[in-house]
């Protein structure tokens, strides 16, 4: 059985990764699970300058999901280099993919220029889809023209894999995915959180400070599966599926929809062992269904 996933000219040992923002920089979860068994870790977003994040409350729970509005809190690229890279250097076998966010093209490319020489950085996931910051992220991700230009600028600066992370909060996700492919991206991640809102009817106020936030968890899985299905039919670069994967059955659903790899997000909060359990389940399913490699999943659904 071959579990490997090729993106650009690099190989991930298996298709199971942990989604950005749910897994820090690996350090916290490294005490609970063996990181070297993971295919990839997508770090918390890194921006040029430190960001304190949004005022609280930042979280609320909803039926089959949760809404967050963290606001890309991070120590900035210098803090990343000083405080996070030393730990990332110790992670064996697993691809460390740095999630990069910004408000302008310049902010994205500066981050990449500053970390591209770090050997332990396997590749980048470009966050053009965060619903929780006012001036950036989503503003890029909803406009195919800007997405293509940004992707081209990033492509010029690095030979490492570039993965564009797409938002479902658009009219047609396939046009944005196409812009990524034309711009020279090596893969796309589908999907970031779905914009959501919860209102406390007793206080007559939104449950989180930013009023709206990003909905994640099993509630959004069908949205993610549909996005992966549609995008993978439209473009020829690999699609990385995420959104509400709680167990191996959910992961298999994403592979059948057209995903070449997957990410576990909210489920890490509920059971930190989920990525390992999902990987074991994928192996059993492949054995029982006589599938040799991940691309074998893609031949079932037209």
């Amino acid at each position, binding site marked *: 059985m071959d579990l490997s996933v090729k993106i650009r000219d690099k190989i991930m040992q298996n298709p199971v990764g942990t989604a950005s*923002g*749910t*897994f*820090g920089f690996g350090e*916290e*979860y490294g*005490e*609970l699970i063996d990181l070297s068994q993971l295919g990839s870790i997508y770090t*918390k977003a890194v921006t040029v300058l430190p960001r*304190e*994040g949004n*005022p*609280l*409350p*930042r*979280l*609320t*729970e909803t*039926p*089959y*999901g*949760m809404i*967050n509005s*963290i606001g890309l*809190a991070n120590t900035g690229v210098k803090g990343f280099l000083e405080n996070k890279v030393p730990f990332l250097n110790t992670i064996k076998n697993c691809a460390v993919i740095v999630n990069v966010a910004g408000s302008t093209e310049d902010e994205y490319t500066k981050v990449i220029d500053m970390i591209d020489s770090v050997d332990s950085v396997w590749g980048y996931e470009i966050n053009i889809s965060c619903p929780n910051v006012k001036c950036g992220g989503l503003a890029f991700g909803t406009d195919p023209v800007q997405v293509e230009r940004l992707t081209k600028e990033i492509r010029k600066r690095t030979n490492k894999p570039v993965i564009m992370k797409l938002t479902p909060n658009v009219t047609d996700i396939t046009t944005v995915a196409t812009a990524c492919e034309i711009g020279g991206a090596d893969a796309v991640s589908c999907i970031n959180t779905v914009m959501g809102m919860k209102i406390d009817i007793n206080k007559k106020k939104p449950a989180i400070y930013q009023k709206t936030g990003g909905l994640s*968890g*099993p509630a959004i899985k069908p949205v993610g599966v549909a996005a992966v299905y549609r995008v993978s039919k439209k473009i020829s670069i690999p699609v990385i599926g995420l959104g509400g994967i709680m167990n191996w059955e959910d992961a298999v659903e994403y592979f059948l929809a057209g995903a070449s790899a997957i990410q576990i997000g*909210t489920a*890490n*909060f*509920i*059971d*930190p*062992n989920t990525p390992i359990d999902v990987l074991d389940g994928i192996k059993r399913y492949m054995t029982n269904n006589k599938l040799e490699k991940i691309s074998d999943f893609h031949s079932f659904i037209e």
Partner: protein
Amino acid sequence: MIQKQCKVISNKLIAKDYYELVFNWESSFNPKPGQFLTLRPQGLPLLRRPFAFSSFKDNRAAIIYKTVGKATKGFSSLTEKDSISILGPLGSGFDLPKKRPVLIAGGIGLGPMLFTAIDFAERGLSPILVIGARDKSFIPKLELGKGVEVVIATDDGSLGFKGNVTQCLKTEYNNILNNCEILCCGPHIMLKACHELALEYDIECQVSMEEMMACAVGACYGCVVETTHQEKYKRVCKDGPVFNSREIVWI
């Protein structure tokens, strides 16, 4: 920290709406007073719920919880036949005080303060434990052993002092307040009042904060509180839950 399935030893109603859940905790990770765990609900809701350890001895640990929503009502039906998924111990505990400790517990904050009181008594620190509640029905029967002086304050005066915990301390323990350290856990409004009391008497005050949590291990930055540090927001789960009250921006 570790995540493991733990056998339920007992799960009893100890006061109105308050339960004590005792479970087997055989691990090299020994909880300290003030540290917490997260408990995974059976089925829905999804997110794990944080609770402070209320005791730990001889491979047995416990929490005290109040039934408020679906998750905690679900926990109340656990029996000795069940096992539960626990992630812990998490966060920082209380620091050992330099002066006589005055432990203040409000509502569900009782759990960690009981654990702290027993631990401090064993260390010979002669803690005073002040418990605040709306009325006597919310106060469980306590067996704290020697070395803990227990003071009770109820809003309606149905047990102990009539009034809140800070009024109680100022009225009946004014002489001690000048030379003690406060450690507290309870509703936000009570913690703020304890902080103000500490400023008034120029004494130290450790507060155990509570916020909605997702990961509980420091990864998601969901459970932050506003602080006076240059890094404005600190994580309750990882940087706390215990903070020096002077670090917190009180709203």
